[in-house]
């Protein structure tokens, strides 16, 4: 009975409770706020076209792979056609058949070697395959596109790619001009370049050890500034000022880079210094490192200079043994050196391009400011110096700034190495005062002119022509710049009567056209188009070509990004300045007195 009542009680209680069931679909339940239903597509306001742009993001993001989107390319009113007359995408991949060579590196990506930077990792490769490049990218923590870019920059891709070879032989003659102190060519003929003892015996490394124990870094910078030493790479920037900026910039790490690329065709002075006197360069770097507070130095050099690389590595090993280089040196100073070998290029010798290369980027110059001395390699203050500049440093420390400042020209003290070639009796590398004239140089050490000289190209492909009337101006930065030329690497090519100035200017331009890094418009396209015009002047001149060549060359010089870009038109512009008749004869009458040009 009780049980029955209990049952009825439950029934009665529930009778008056709110009903759970609803009369679906007439009656709807209220859903909680965060309930979710099926996905739906929204339409545009016209209630017909979907908003969806078929981007497939939802398809990609769906965790349960429930979405599949089918789309079509929109064919609007316009009908576009794309491949009318299109050719192969890039020419360099079509040099020959697909490579079948065996790669010298293990195919496994993880085992691809790394040599510090991508550019130097490339040089061992016989045949670069896609797999290898991907391995390289993985190993170096770079993008494949980056490695590919650098490989094509160095022309290291494809079956026809030039392999690193032997550098052309340097001329044998060396001499120092009379009355000129031997600052750079000290070791020539006498001391064994492979022996540190021989170098130390001749007073080497005394400068480095002297300053580390006696002079504070600021004193060294002061000494170099007072010596008036200017960069020997061509720009002629005062070395002391550069060091000062780097020394005064606060940073936990600073770098010193020796630029031994020597891209100028026909220049041999850096190579000779490194081959015959590597220790002087190393000593110069130690001094520079001490002065600016750098503990790491790099020597950036082309792989082709095999002997120089070998001697440098030997010298560095010996210096490390003697505790002259290393991370823990006596006196609390630390300085390590590394040789970075890269494939041979011209633009790779530009200081910001060197920094980019060492950072694993494509060797392209970057805009300045900031200058490398403030913000260079890996964002740190970096001093980039030419081999010759560094080789002069130990002498200055040993003999004092005053001694150095008193020799040579007042605004360009010291001695300079000149590579003399062309129509002279004894082509070679000579040390002379900067104030020496070409006439004197050739007469005293160069063995005299062969025949009547027609012109001289001072500063290799990026330098300027001198007419015989200007052979007695001093060969320093400022005098040459005044004449429209540039000292550059100090390479002097004397042209005989049978040479054509227009043709030489054209060859210089052709060199730059091939070497341009492709970054800025004036250099990439300007030199290419200018070469076309100069080619026309040589072959089949049209009216106004000469004037067009001059304007374009001036515009390139005004706007190119780096010094090398600006240098590209210097032979042409100085040629037009000093040998106008010769250019006019080509352009107006189609005549080449030397018989070098003509319809080809």
């Amino acid at each position: 009975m009780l049980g029955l009542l209990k049952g009825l009680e439950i029934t009665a209680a529930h009778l008056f409770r709110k009903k759970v069931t609803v009369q679906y679909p007439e009656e709807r339940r209220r859903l909680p706020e965060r309930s979710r239903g099926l996905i739906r597509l929204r339409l545009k306001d016209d209630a017909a076209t979907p908003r969806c742009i078929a981007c497939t993001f939802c398809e990609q993001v769906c965790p349960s792979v429930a979405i599949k989107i089918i789309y079509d390319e929109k064919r609007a009113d316009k009908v576009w056609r794309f491949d009318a007359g299109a050719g192969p995408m890039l020419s360099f991949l079509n040099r020959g058949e697909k490579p079948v060579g065996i790669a010298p590196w293990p195919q496994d990506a993880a085992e691809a070697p790394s040599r510090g930077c991508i550019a130097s990792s490339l040089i061992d490769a016989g045949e670069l395959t896609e797999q290898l490049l991907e391995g390289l990218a993985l190993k170096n923590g770079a993008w494949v596109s980056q490695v590919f870019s650098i490989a094509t920059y160095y022309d290291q891709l494809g079956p026809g790619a030039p392999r690193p070879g032997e550098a052309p032989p340097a001329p044998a003659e060396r001499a120092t001009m009379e009355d000129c102190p031997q600052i750079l060519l000290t070791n020539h003929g006498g001391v064994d370049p492979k022996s540190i003892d021989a170098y130390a015996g001749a007073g080497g490394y005394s400068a480095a050890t002297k300053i580390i124990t006696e002079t504070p870094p600021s004193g060294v910078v002061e000494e170099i500034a007072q010596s008036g030493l200017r960069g020997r790479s061509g720009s002629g920037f005062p070395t002391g000022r550069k060091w000062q900026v780097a020394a005064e910039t606060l940073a936990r790490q600073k770098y010193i880079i020796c630029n031994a690329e020597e891209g100028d065709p026909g220049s041999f002075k850096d190579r000779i210094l490194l081959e015959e006197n590597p220790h002087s360069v190393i000593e110069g770097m130690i001094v520079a490192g001490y002065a600016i507070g750098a503990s790491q130095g790099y020597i950036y050099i082309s792989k082709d200079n095999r002997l120089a690389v070998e001697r440098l590595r030997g010298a560095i090993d010996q210096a490390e043994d003697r505790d002259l280089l290393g991370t823990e040196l006596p006196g609390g100073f630390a300085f390590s050196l590394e040789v970075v070998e890269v494939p041979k290029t011209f633009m790779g010798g530009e200081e910001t391009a060197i920094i980019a290369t060492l950072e694993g980027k494509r060797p392209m110059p970057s805009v300045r400011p900031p200058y490398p001395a403030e913000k260079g390699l890996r964002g740190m203050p970096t001093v980039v110096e030419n081999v010759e500049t560094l080789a002069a440093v130990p002498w200055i420390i040993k003999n004092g700034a005053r001694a150095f400042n008193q020799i040579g020209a007042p605004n360009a003290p010291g001695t300079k190495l000149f590579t003399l070639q062309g129509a002279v009796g004894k082509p070679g590398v000579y040390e002379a005062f900067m104030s020496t004239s070409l006439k004197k140089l050739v007469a005293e050490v160069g063995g005299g002119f062969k025949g009547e000289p027609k012109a001289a190209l001072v500063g290799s492909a990026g330098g300027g022509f001198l007419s015989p009337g200007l052979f007695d101006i001093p060969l320093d930065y400022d005098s040459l710049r005044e004449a429209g030329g540039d000292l550059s690497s100090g390479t002097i090519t004397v042209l005989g009567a049978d040479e054509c100035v227009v043709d030489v200017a054209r060859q210089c331009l052709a060199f730059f056209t091939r070497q341009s890094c492709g970054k800025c418009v004036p250099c990439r396209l300007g030199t290419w188009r200018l070469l076309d015009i100069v080619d026309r002047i040589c072959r089949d001149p049209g009216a106004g070509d000469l004037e067009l060549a001059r304007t374009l060359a001036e515009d390139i010089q005004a706007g190119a990004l780096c010094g090398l870009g600006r240098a590209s038109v210097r032979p042409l512009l100085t040629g037009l300045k000093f040998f106008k008749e010769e250019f006019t004869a080509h352009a107006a009458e189609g005549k080449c007195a030397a018989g070098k040009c003509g319809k080809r």
Partner: protein
Amino acid sequence: MSNGTSDRPNTLPPVRISGTGAPVKLSINGREVMAYEGDTILEAAKSVKIKIPYLCVIKGLEPFGGCRLCIVEVEGEERPVPSCATQVREGMVVITDSEELLRLRKTYLELLLSDHNAYCLPPCKYGCPTNVDIPAFIGLIADGDYDESQRVLKENLPFPAIVGRVCPHPCEGVCRRDEVEEPISIRLSHRFVGDVAIEKGFKPEQPAAATGKRVAVVGAGPAGLANTYYLALKGHSVTIFEALPDTGGMLRYGIPEYRLPKRVLNAELEPLWAMGVELKTGMALGPDFSLDDLLGEMGFDAAFLGIGAHASRAMRVEGEDLQGVITVVDFLRDVALGSPPDVGDKVAVIGGGFSAMDAARVSKRLGASEVTVFYRRTQKEMPAHELEVKDAMEEGVRFSFLVAPVRVEGKDGRVDGMICQKMELGEPDASGRRRPQPVPGSENLVELDTIIPAIGQMPKLTYIDVKKEEECTIFPEEGGVACTRWQTIEINHKTYQTGRPQVFAAGDAVSGALTVVAAIGGAKKAAWAMDAFLRGEDMAAYEAALPELEKPPMISIPAYRDKKEARQMTPQLPVPEREGNFLEIDRGFSEAAAGVESRRCLQCICEGVESCKLRRYSIGAGLMKEEGNRFAGVQHLYGRDTTHDFIQRDPNRCIDCARCIRVCKYVTGSGVYDFTGRGAGTIVTPPFDRSLNETDCVSCGRCATLCPTGALFMKERQLVNWHLDTSRCIFCADCVEVCPVESLAITPAFELATPSHEDLHCNLLDMARGPDLNPAGACQKDHAPRENEDHAAKQYQKDVHGGETALKREQDKQ
């Protein structure tokens, strides 16, 4: 853009840009500017709206400095410095727009254009009065899609087979392929498509729903027929009134059969009659009806005057009214009507235009043994196309240049000769042609049977009133349709309205005797205006909103192809077989030849034309096509990558600004692109020329949005289907979160949250479009909203059913 000195107060820019240092003061273009240390010159200039052009800067990334357009002069600096990288200094004096800088920028832009193997807009399209989309229809011939090709053509040019036979092709004169070797045969390609369309009987365009408006078109010439075509397409009911016994105007009664066979003319006009256009022949404006009749008792809503230029210009020499002197219009019309006049043996045609050539060649076919064309200038100045002249010469027509008639000699009221005078060329006149001057004492007599003067035509705005037998003008009323002093109808050249708002006019009647294609171009635009008028639009507003019909600027990009491909020729009827008959001479392209010819087309079109910075700066620097490019030469020619779903890549348009490289590497981290090669051949591309699909591209599209040219471009696509597997969906709504265009939402209907077991796949697009489109399936069973409709549910209703609720439908049912 001289900014000069300004009265603006020297206040600091309100927002720091990138500089973080102390405020500095500098001068830009003589104007004092405040900025912060660390700002670049470019940023400082931007803050005061001084514009410096640049192509490679990306805000927020390190300066690149490659384009060299942002160079500025800074006092104390040896040479211009890039403003994107140079930071401001106290007291800096900057010049951004000196002559020297403008010249340098122009040179660099010209260099960029010299290796930009692409073009923005097709010059041919803007060279043609009808603005027909030539690259598109030629591209479609190359694809073999002739149906689509004729559709594209007829959008702007309704009679390709006719125009493709008779047009003097101004388009070919501006074709860029000419810079490579020879222009594309655009005219014959038109004709090919038109012929194929007739032969295969492609379905003509369907007219829009009838509007109920009635239009009278006076004159069934090229202008009237084109006008009719576009009006009829818009759904208006058109009646054509024609004075002559058949349609075509000059096409039928001026152009001889051997150039334009009547069967082609008839066939091409078929679509008109299929659209229900009414034709009334033998009805001439003036004698038979007036404009008042048309708009009044005949009940037309608008009228179009395409009455052409059928009156011949007089020679103004003595003896012109002798028998045997027959004007070219009358002569050609009589021949077309089947009653050719007896021309005798010796015929002289005076003039050097198209009709002169026609008259000479027709005379030859009628049996004249000696036909001579007298022209007062030299062959070089002849208005007729050189091929026409060549053909006439081949057929034995003789030419006598630098000769003008002085007097017509007659006997018994009939011509028997003409006295001519030698001429010599003097100074150029207003048209640029050298004006001929008579050589005194050089008159001589030529024996002749017939003289056909063909020295120009003009509209015939008068008629002989049959009742009064006197000459009357066809527009007698005051303040209505007016005439210019050249005896042409005066119109508003944008709305094509005459003095009477309901009356429109175009063609030769407005312009004087011109080409067929010019008449069609005008008549088409008149049809658009008439459509607006008939729809009751405000014509002043229409005129104001009309896009500038002028030619857009064409910049100086030289055309280049490494291979020269000769222009395709068409077979011609051999000269001996032409004698005494009117068989068509030109046989047209074969399918193969049309294909080859169409693939020569350079496709001068670019999707990026509106956003292209290179184009904008080039126009600003005055680098125009007419002036040519000083650095034209060999160019690079690359293939296109259209394989990627989103981004299409055309390296031909790339200017190596490296924006894509930098944004891809340093912003999105994918590193898809980089420079490749060295020297002039440097180009930005993915490694190994891979398709973008094979790279790490995440399809973010930032490269495409940053590209200053059309080298990288976002593709557009449209949704076909949006499938959802309801058995898999976990209702996480991640897809709703990621949708960039808010295209996805969640249904508030909980029933749909339960997977159906009847059909697991549903197409959301069909669902969204409503029940009518949705085939019976589980998904559509019930997606009515909750009773208490909140906003979202309302939106859902609107989206899903176009406003009609399920509930309402149910109510309707009951």
